[in-house]
């Protein structure tokens, strides 16, 4: 499912996407970057509150297509620049990780 469709559902705002809107098939929720590094899958959407450049670095290494910063965490300039350089889509939402995970889970299951 396209990232913009998913973000609409959770009242998310997309800060950056590559020219092709990512097509999301799976997602991973974690605030521990070692956990993301070890267990997230390529192409996933990452659901986290860790809104800093190390998160983008990990996404790039794992091949995570998009990240959504929860609980109103903002996208700072350095994060945006890193996301553009590494082609990782970035979105924000006021909802918390639990709510976002629930919505995304349901949508991806329904297809």
């Amino acid at each position, binding site marked *: 499912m396209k990232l913009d469709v998913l973000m609409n559902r959770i009242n998310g705002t997309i800060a950056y996407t590559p020219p092709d809107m990512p097509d999301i098939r799976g997602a991973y929720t974690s605030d*521990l*970057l*070692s956990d993301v*590094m070890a267990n997230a899958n390529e192409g996933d959407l990452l659901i986290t509150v860790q809104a800093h450049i190390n998160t983008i*670095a990990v996404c790039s290494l794992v091949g995570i297509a998009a990240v959504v910063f929860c609980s109103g965490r903002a996208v700072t300039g350095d994060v945006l620049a890193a996301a553009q350089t590494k082609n990782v889509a970035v979105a924000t939402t006021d909802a918390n990780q639990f709510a976002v995970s629930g919505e995304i889970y349901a949508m991806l299951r329904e297809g």
Partner: protein
Amino acid sequence: MIQNLPIDITNSSLVIRELITRLRVCDVMSTDMITARRSDTLRTVQLQMKERGITGVPIAENGRVFGIVSVDDIIQALDEGHINDRVDAHMTKNVVLLEEYLPLSLAVSQFQRYSYGRFPVVNKEGLLVGIISSRDILTKLLVEINREVDRLETLIPASVPTSDRPNGFREFTIKQYDLDNGGKATESIKKLCESIGLDSRTCRRIAVIVYELEINLAIHSYGGVISCSYTPECFRIVSRDNGPGIADRDLAVTPGFTTANDWVKSLGFGAGMGLPNIKRVADEFHITSAKGHGTVVTVSVNLVQTGGGETK
């Protein structure tokens, strides 16, 4: 004006002690100085100080030092209304002189012994040749320390001589607390892995290993180096740091155990998953470390399928 030089003559580092012993007073003093005569008025000296932006003037004639007038003497003269008196009526007559070939360490101890801001410097014949202030000393030391640091930096050898480097050798220096660059070494090594045709699962395992080692160096060590090399059979990653060392290696590889600080944790690191993650994806994993010393982590990934190493 710095009255007390913050230099510990006996307990400073060897470099500083060597410097203040090697340098002589004449290497540091200013020779571009002004003097006044005994018959000049304090007003004349005050104007000289103002014009040159200095705080002390030796009173000397034909090289012979009779005294010194400091800015404190001028303030007192203004206060007490004798600014138009002759200098020799109010100058400090018991002047402490430094001989030009004395080691700088002796000059430093004189600054610490007396609360004077400067000392006139004389030659063997006792004639005035310069003046030395605590500022002169600090400036010279800074220049010399910079030169010494440059020299020392050129002495640091590359950790592995180029000629001994195995195939595909790569080395990355990781600085303490430099999380802004976290992942850069991993990114570079991941590209290397892809370029030599490793399959995506192996690339991912190597990326996990390098990333965890990289972050460990930044958050736990004083800084260190990650090096990678490979043969057709094996990809090898070695992380070396300068301390502080691991107190209990078994505890360090226990999932969930961490010594990370709150700042590191707030960024999503330091959850006690680093070394366990590495161990899980590695075919060979070895740590040598001791509290107070550096840590070396050696990790290998087999490139020929032997069934070892759990993969994700």
